[in-house]
């Protein structure tokens, strides 16, 4: 019978360690609550919150130090499913998505649900089509998988150069949102904040690569969940008397609808293909919450869901994380957890948006501009809202809200203690640090192991492979940090462009490489290139008159990639026997991990034809 090779079970103490982490975090927050009562200055409380969250995750990263390639590249394939699940649920949207989607739901309402549905549907499709099979293969990166699956060094290089694009975009988006959160907690400049975040990322992941990433981001994800779910539960009790606002905010929507009608909140009508994403920074409320297709047209809604979901399913950093489980079955379980947790997060965002609309709009009724209601004033004081251009009478549409700050606005609106507000800010920062660390680690490993070490990496010693990856991680962290300071751009849009690229180019070829035996190396190369070209055309044509928003690029890129793969595969000879054996083996959960076997054989008698 097939049996597991080289599986080391996770440390049985892991649960205890995470218990200790959660206890330290809780103790820290309680301590800050007490200090707040004792009258310690606001500034030092905020800094303390930032330091606690950063120090806890950096300590875990350093503690997970390793010089073994197996640990550095794939975390020893022994991360328990639950930890990966929680990390993936937070890493899929990342800090940019968490801050951006929650704010977009508040500003636009129903139409922004396509973002959340896309993320959860993307994780779902990944477990059906990709992740368990990639786990059986066991390669540390997506390019390494493709290169070895098709025995083509050229394909590996091409895949590496494409996978780098979404990773860079996401890393920049995460650093940008991390800067926003860091500036909320500490009085520092944008440049200083970016340097700080890059430094924390480097200290966290350089010591142990994916091993450090796995454990530190599980801790960060735990913190993010506490920081988002706790205030939302308190708010739910205050608003509906039940702690699960996710389920109980339905009846509230009717009263929100009534106030919106009384306040004259517009009911925009979007064209079929229109896509109106609220921008970063201060934005007025775009339309009534429950009205569908006011900012995103019906077809754009469906294409938007498609774009986000293929992007999430084909994301190189998420896929690399979902293969660090002890077994194929654990990969299915891990993503099952990810779907459940990210589902809860997204339900929370929509309930929070309803609570915020309810409080803000009902407090506004009939107020003159000179007397801004207390709740709104708290937001204006900290720059999360503005009332510029309001006439004599303050109306819902004459107020602007900071899209990426709406999660912070909830505890402020509810009059919760400052420690809760800071906890939320620290949570957003933790999500951004985790997201940036995940992208930068994967970026470094792809550049180090797939490009620099290249197809001959089986010849290199462990120490050499790890050293090259470390240097590459360091270099990429520095470069994306620089990019985040220099490049302008909305973090949420950068994230969605990253999804558009990975969904157009990587997802179709990955899916076909598992589900279609006839695919050839040349077909895969053609598919990757066509997907990328299609995505780029769609992004650039957005400026023209095609009417297709650039974020919906997979609507063009995906079919182009599939057609090119099919056409070129049929034009080239049927793949050889050994490749067909790999495909057959890939589809069966049992037996030795393919990557390990190929590496062992390569060391034994040199690699197969490249």
């Amino acid at each position, binding site marked *: *019978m*097939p*049996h*597991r090779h080289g599986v080391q079970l996770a440390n049985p103490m892991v649960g205890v360690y995470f218990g200790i982490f959660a206890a330290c975090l809780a103790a820290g927050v309680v301590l800050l609550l007490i200090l707040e009562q004792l009258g310690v200055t606001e500034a030092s409380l905020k800094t303390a919150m930032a330091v606690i969250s950063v120090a806890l995750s950096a300590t875990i990263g350093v503690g997970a130090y390793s010089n073994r390639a197996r640990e550095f590249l794939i975390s020893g394939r022994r991360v328990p499913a639950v930890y990966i699940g929680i990390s993936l649920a937070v890493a899929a949207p990342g800090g940019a998505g968490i801050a951006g989607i929650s704010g977009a739901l508040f500003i636009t309402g*129903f139409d922004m*649900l*396509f973002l*959340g*549905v896309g993320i*959860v*549907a993307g994780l*779902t*499709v990944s*477990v*059906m*089509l990709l992740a*368990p099979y990639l786990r059986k293969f066991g390669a540390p990166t997506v390019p390494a998988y493709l290169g070895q699956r098709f025995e083509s060094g050229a394909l590996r290089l091409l895949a590496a150069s494409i996978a780098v694009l979404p990773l860079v975009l996401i890393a920049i988006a995460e650093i940008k949102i991390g800067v926003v959160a860091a500036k909320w907690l500490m009085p520092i400049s944008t440049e200083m904040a970016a340097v700080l975040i890059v430094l924390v990322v480097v200290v966290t992941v350089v010591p142990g690569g994916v091993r450090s990433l796995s454990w530190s981001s599980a801790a960060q994800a735990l913190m993010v969940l506490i920081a988002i779910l706790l205030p939302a539960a308190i708010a739910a009790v205050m608003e509906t008397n039940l702690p699960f606002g*996710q*389920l109980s905010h*339905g*009846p*509230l*929507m*009717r009263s929100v609808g009534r106030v919106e009608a009384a306040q004259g909140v517009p009911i925009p009508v979007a064209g079929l293909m229109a896509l109106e994403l609220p921008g970063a920074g201060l934005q007025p409320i775009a339309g009534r919450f*429950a009205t*569908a*297709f006011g900012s995103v047209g*019906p077809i754009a*809604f*469906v294409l938007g*869901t*498609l774009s986000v*979901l293929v992007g999430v399913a084909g994301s190189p950093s998420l896929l690399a994380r979902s293969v660090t489980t002890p*077994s*194929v*079955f654990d990969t*299915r*379980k891990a*993503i*099952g957890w990810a*779907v*459940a947790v990210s*589902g809860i997060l*997204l*339900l929370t965002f*929509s309930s929070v948006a309803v609570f915020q609309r309810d409080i803000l709009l009902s407090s506004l009724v009939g107020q003159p501009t000179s007397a801004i209601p207390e709740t709104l004033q708290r937001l204006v004081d900290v720059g999360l809202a503005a009332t510029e251009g309001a006439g004599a009478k303050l109306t819902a549409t004459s107020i602007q809200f900071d899209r990426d700050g709406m999660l912070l606005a909830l505890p402020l609106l509810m009059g919760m203690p400052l420690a809760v507000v800071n906890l939320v800010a620290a949570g957003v920062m933790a999500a951004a640090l985790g997201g940036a660390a995940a992208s930068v680690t994967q970026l470094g490993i792809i550049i180090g192991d797939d490009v620099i070490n290249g197809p001959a990496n089986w010849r290199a010693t462990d120490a050499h492979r790890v050293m090259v990856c470390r240097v590459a991680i360091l270099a990429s962290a520095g470069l994306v940090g620089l990019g985040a300071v220099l490049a302008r751009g909305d973090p949420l849009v950068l994230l969605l462009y990253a999804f558009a690229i990975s969904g157009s180019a990587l997802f179709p070829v990955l899916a076909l490489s598992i*589900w279609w035996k006839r695919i050839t190396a040349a077909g895969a190369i053609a598919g990757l290139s066509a997907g990328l070209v299609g995505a780029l055309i769609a992004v650039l044509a957005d400026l023209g008159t095609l009417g297709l928003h650039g974020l919906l690029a997979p609507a063009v890129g995906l079919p182009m990639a599939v057609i090119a793969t099919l056409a070129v595969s049929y034009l080239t000879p049927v793949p050889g026997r050994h490749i067909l054996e790999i495909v*057959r083996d890939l*589809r*069966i*959960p*049992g037996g030795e991990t393919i990557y390990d076997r190929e590496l062992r054989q390569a060391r034994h008698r040199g690699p197969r034809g490249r």
Partner: protein
Amino acid sequence: MAQDNGERHWSRTSSLMWTMFVLWLIFSFGVHFFVDSLNTIKILGFPLGFYMAAQGSLIVFVIMLFIFAHRQDVIDREEGQAED
């Protein structure tokens, strides 16, 4: 023999995948085409079309994955292709 098992294992795996895939398609895309007509029905105080996008499809995904992981595991075991 093993070869035979492998093929039957894969055909059962693919048919499970396609069943799930169709369900997934309906809840990822299908329901959103009917938001306005579904909105006339109310459930837990939510309009149904809104509910499906905000919560229903996400809950369906979770349930689907549990069934999927379980069914796939049964197939792997019955065809002798499971790990361990």
